[in-house]
């Protein structure tokens, strides 16, 4: 068996070198598909990450215009916190808010010189258990007589969510289509290398080689093409995404981009594995077809 394995590998490399142009085309096709696939995966992961980030900081801000006492504020706070789905209610008085605002921006803007009076309202920050409850709770809170205005970023979240949904569905369809197209191209490309070796195959079969024996070198060749295509896709994707991370983190620092960790590792290894699988499957299908056509 060992000497057979050596034979298969030597034959695969021989064919790999001989069909240089075909090999390059097949590798290029696999690389392009996988890069598209990888970009899609990164897009979905990042959109999911942004949505997750925004929703985890999901608060309803409820403003009170009229002056209220601390007791009144306490009563409202208690009332709000009893609403179902509410996790926590914080009260920020106008004075606190003004002080914090001045601390944050006072020096830069010299705001104290422009505005003498505190323009800020009292604010209740309502933390909600799940994002789904946001619109409902916001509506209930807005009906309280003491509350003059309610704000939350629900619309944005809903839009982001449906965007992620569209990207997922559209991307999945795209990836399936592109994968089929790639498989077709890989099958046909490898078929050309198989056909280029038709005499070899004919002779092999005449001297009594089994079908599997004829197949193995081609499948090894396909795996080789797939691995190279996958590694190239990985390198291209990594370099491009690293530069995207760099650009985004300097230009749009507030955007929570996925910059590392487990999930990126998975996406990068998917490149190599999917490439290998594509190459192997493509070779298997094409050589089986040619063998069926032979005697």
């Amino acid at each position: 068996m060992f000497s057979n394995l050596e034979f298969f590998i030597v034959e695969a490399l021989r064919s790999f070198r001989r069909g240089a142009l075909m090999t390059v085309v097949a590798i290029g096709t696999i690389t392009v598909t996988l890069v598209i696939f990888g970009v899609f995966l990164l897009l979905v992961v990042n959109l999911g990450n942004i949505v997750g980030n925004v929703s985890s900081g999901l608060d309803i801000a409820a403003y009170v215009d009229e002056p209220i006492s601390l007791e009144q504020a306490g009563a409202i706070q208690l009332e709000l916190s009893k609403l179902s789905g509410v996790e926590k209610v914080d009260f920020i008085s106008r004075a606190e808010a003004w002080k914090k605002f001045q601390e944050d921006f006072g020096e830069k803007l010299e705001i104290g010189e422009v505005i003498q009076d505190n323009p800020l309202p009292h604010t209740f920050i309502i933390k909600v258990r799940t994002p789904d409850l946001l619109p409902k709770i916001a509506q209930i809170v807005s009906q309280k007589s003491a509350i003059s205005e309610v704000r939350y970023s629900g619309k944005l979240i809903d839009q982001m969510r449906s965007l992620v949904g569209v990207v997922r569905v559209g991307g999945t369809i795209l990836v399936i289509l592109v994968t089929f197209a790639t498989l077709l191209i890989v099958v046909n490309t490898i078929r050309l290398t198989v056909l280029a070796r038709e005499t070899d195959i004919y002779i092999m079969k005449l001297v009594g080689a089994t079908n599997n024996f004829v197949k193995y070198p081609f499948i090894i060749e396909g795996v080789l093409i797939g691995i190279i295509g996958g590694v190239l896709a990985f390198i291209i994707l990594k370099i491009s995404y690293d530069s995207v991370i760099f650009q985004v983190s300097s230009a749009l620092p507030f955007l929570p981009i996925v910059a590392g960790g487990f999930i990126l590792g998975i996406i990068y290894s998917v490149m190599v594995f999917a490439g290998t699988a594509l190459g192997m499957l493509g070779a298997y299908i094409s050589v089986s077809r040619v063998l069926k056509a032979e005697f």
Partner: protein
Amino acid sequence: MIQLINVSKTYPNGIDVLYNINLNIGKEEFVFIVGPSGAGKTTLMKLLYREERPSSGKVIVDKVDVAELTVDQVPYLRRNIGIVFQDYKLLPKRTVFENVAFALRVTGAPRSSIRRKVMQALELVGMLRRANAFPDELSGGEKQRACIARAIVNNPPILLADEPTGNLDPTTSWDIIQLLDKINKRNTTVIVSTHNKSIVDDMKRRVVAIENGRVVRDQMLGGYNV
């Protein structure tokens, strides 16, 4: 060794190539199949190693009905039949040694025995000194010797040669036929299809003549013509 019983062959395009052939070839016989081009000689050969199946009738090789073999069994039939081609079918980017070794390697033969067997085969056909040459460095006769070496390296009990001298000059043709005769004397059944009259007449072996897909003559110690 080989039996054809009422064998007919019609190709899918409707052309009848062989019609009701009955033929018995014994162990270690030397048989010429003669007839004009298109008579069905090549198809007859192809039936024996199952490149083609008969449309009707039975082809029996070494007690086995060839048409009944499964795809998995066909390779083992072919390991018992060496085949020599008019156009040699040597792999161009491999040396003579590699071409002959290829026939052993694809049957999964152990590596240790390959070199010895290839050398023996090359010695038998007189090509030992040309072992490292590539096919395009060889003369026609040398190519045919390499092709014969590949056909016999596995020691098959049957050797088929389809127009083995078709591309060779008379002297070389005679050398090749002598070589096939030598292989026949080493207990191999040899079947040679040819339309080379002088060779058939000089060898005085069994002659099976085919015309228009029919056996028109089967004669021991025959000549090309009656």
